[in-house]
């Protein structure tokens, strides 16, 4: 390959797109490293503290698209105290200083200030796409800056963020000559928006393919918007609460008939009972349906709707659909690939679906590869059946509302059931366990889950052996998150080299002590070992023998981070 001029190698590298492949290219030899770094346009950083912004910018001067993830996954469930970290400002600052021509920024679980958004909007002339998922720290003022200053903005996608509403007119800040929008998602915003500005924006955006509204957009405005944008492919309805007798509703029913391009439907943040019937005409085209926000739609109404959706590939729904409803899904949606069933009463311990619904799905939907299932109970027999019917699982996340519930038929732990899953699903990359589980399930996981990259464990296991089975067995493990398990110092310290092959390890409410964490940190300088409690001062940990409430360790080349709050002790 040394005989080819650089231009040829560059051209070949253009075809290599995946992050891991590009990483491999850069390791072949010095000249490939050099060529790869100058042609690399997309970078994914799974842990923003694993590398410094300056290093990123130095290595990849041609960077166009950056994806960053901040807080650990368990932050979604309020297990990470406020202020832990994940600030994006240093990254934007470094990128701005370096004159990188950033076009796309995708952030997950990061703290994004208005200042960062303003700096972003002013620094990159060609900025096209901003995607914020589960972020916090900004207000509608920051959005106004993005709207006003990013002249070629194509995508503004806000998913499940905590955004403070300043009652400004951020939507009106899109200039009149901004006609480039392809995707606009503001469903997570709690406040009012200027409806007129929205309608005008839609009217001047002929390329708009994806639009997800928040609950402040009423039905009559929705109808007018749909009239202007019949080319929409992805629609998120904000409020669907209205008098079914009204003219607005009748008009909407007619307008929907024109929306033949819609293949993805979501939202219904507020919904009137019996109103989903308006959607029937477009159901046959839907490949993606997210009704998980539609609080209070009765199971029978959901079932009626889904009967029309023969082409569904992705379905997110609430458990009020019931086992019977899942049976209907299994009959109607033969192409289903991804299913998420959310709990409508998570703390009532009375999940509305059981193992029966899952078995029905596995029998009808043989293409299923991704599952998130909150349920009342699960049996080993059901899991064994599901494993047989659907060997193609890539993601299997089961959450039994009673965290340590055994198989109700046999009163046995669910080791055998999950064992069947990992044995049968050879492509399994992500697994979340629940229910009563002993060390045995971890033996199975270590033995069979060869492709497993992410494992989430809670209230499971009996001894340190459990955790060791996983660390020894799962060669491709990248993220391990454990809470409330009896794994302690022996488990933590037996195979410390393993942690350099992983992105991160989270252990909370386990049996790990301060002393063990100190030992680990000392032996492995390439890891940051952070311990913290619930926002208490870090010096509440005075004795080595003390149990650690929360530990988060990750590999890094950036060293100890400077922005950790007082309660985080980096050992």
């Amino acid at each position, binding site marked *: 390959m040394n005989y080819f001029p650089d231009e040829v190698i560059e051209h070949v590298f253009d075809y290599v797109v995946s992050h891991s492949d590009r990483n491999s290219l850069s390791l072949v030899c010095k000249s490939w490293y050099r060529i790869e770094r100058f042609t690399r346009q997309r970078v994914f950083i799974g842990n923003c503290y694993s590398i410094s912004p300056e290093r990123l910018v130095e290595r990849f001067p041609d960077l166009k698209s950056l994806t960053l993830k901040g807080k650990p996954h368990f932050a979604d469930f309020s297990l990470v105290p406020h202020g832990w970290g994940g600030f994006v400002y240093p990254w934007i600052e470094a990128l701005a200083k370096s004159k990188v021509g950033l076009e796309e920024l995708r952030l997950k679980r990061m703290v994004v200030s208005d200042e960062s958004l303003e700096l972003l909007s002013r620094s990159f002339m060609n900025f096209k796409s901003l995607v914020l998922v589960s972020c916090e720290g900004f207000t509608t003022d920051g959005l106004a800056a993005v709207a006003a200053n990013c002249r070629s903005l194509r995508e503004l996608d806000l998913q499940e963020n905590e955004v403070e509403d300043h009652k400004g007119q951020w939507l009106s800040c899109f200039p009149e000559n901004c006609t480039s929008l392809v995707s606009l998602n503001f469903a997570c915003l709690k406040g009012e928006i200027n409806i007129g500005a929205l309608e005008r924006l839609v009217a001047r955006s002929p390329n708009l393919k994806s639009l997800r509204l928040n609950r402040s957009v009423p039905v009559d405005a929705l109808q007018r918007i749909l009239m202007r944008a019949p080319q929409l492919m992805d629609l998120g309805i904000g409020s669907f609460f209205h*008098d*079914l007798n009204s003219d607005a509703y009748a008009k909407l029913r007619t307008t929907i008939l024109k929306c033949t391009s819609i293949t993805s439907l979501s939202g219904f943040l507020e919904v009137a009972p019996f109103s989903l019937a308006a959607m029937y005409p477009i159901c046959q085209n839907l490949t993606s349906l997210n009704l998980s926000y539609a*609080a209070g739609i009765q199971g029978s109404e959901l079932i009626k709707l889904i009967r029309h959706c023969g082409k569904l590939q992705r379905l997110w729904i609430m458990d009020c659909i019931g086992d019977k409803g899942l049976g209907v899904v299994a009959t109607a949606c033969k192409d289903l690939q991804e299913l998420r069933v959310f709990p409508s009463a998570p703390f009532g311990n009375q999940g509305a679906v059981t193992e029966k619904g899952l078995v029905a799905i596995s029998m009808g939907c043989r293409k299923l590869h991704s599952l998130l299932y909150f349920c009342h109970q699960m049996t080993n027999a059901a899991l064994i059946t599901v494993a047989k019917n659907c060997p193609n699982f890539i993601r299997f996340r089961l959450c039994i509302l009673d965290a340590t519930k055994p198989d109700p038929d046999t009163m046995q732990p669910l080791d055998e059931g999950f064992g069947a899953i990992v044995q049968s699903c050879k492509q399994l990359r992500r697994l979340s366990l629940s229910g009563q589980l002993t060390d045995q399930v971890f033996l199975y996981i270590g033995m069979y889950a060869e492709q497993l990259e992410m494992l989430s464990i809670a209230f499971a*296991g009996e001894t340190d052996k459990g955790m060791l089975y996983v660390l020894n067995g799962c060669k491709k493990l990248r993220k391990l998150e454990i809470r409330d398990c009896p794994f302690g110092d022996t488990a933590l310290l037996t195979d410390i080299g393993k942690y350099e092959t992983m992105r991160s390890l989270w252990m909370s409410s386990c049996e790990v002590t301060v002393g063990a964490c100190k030992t680990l940190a000392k032996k492995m300088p390439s890891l940051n070992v952070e311990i913290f409690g619930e926002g208490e001062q870090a010096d509440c940990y005075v004795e080595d023998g003390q149990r650690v409430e929360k530990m988060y360790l990750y590999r890094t080349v950036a060293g100890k981070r400077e922005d950790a709050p007082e309660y985080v002790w980096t050992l």
Partner: protein
Amino acid sequence: METLEQTQSSSSSSSSIDSNKYSNCCRNRTDLSTDLKLGLSISPSSPSQLPFNSTTPREETFAWPPVNKSVLRRNIIVEKQNHIHHQRSLFVKVYMEGIPIGRKLNLLEHHNYDGLVQALCHMFKTIILSPNSQPLNSWNFHVLTYEDQEGDWMMVGDVPWEMFLSSVKRLKITRANSC
């Protein structure tokens, strides 16, 4: 075997907590009170089945199930709207023209207009023209009307059944020739 350590700072809220609860010096009390508010007191199926085999039953398991904040928020809305959707009955008053005493009928027992009309014919011992039928010698027959949420009287049968259920306040059987 975890040790129960209650420091001074946690004593104020721990008075409302069962002393058997698992706790340690770094437990966040605001989380706890939120969990209690949300009725979060899941008890495991039986203490002996707890993995830790400790003498302190884990009666409180905060941040479980693992649902994020937006799921929690939508579920609070579900709780509020649940009263609408556990409705098994929708009783409305029914009057027949000329008869001062009315009847009551549960609309949710019927799945469509035909069922409703049949039930009313039976109840009032009259012939009610179904919405789809042709009016013949209309002087002897009745039609079914309803009052909607806006107070207007409308012919039954023009809108889809579900829409009708959402908007009907009461029914009236009137003589066909007075429509």
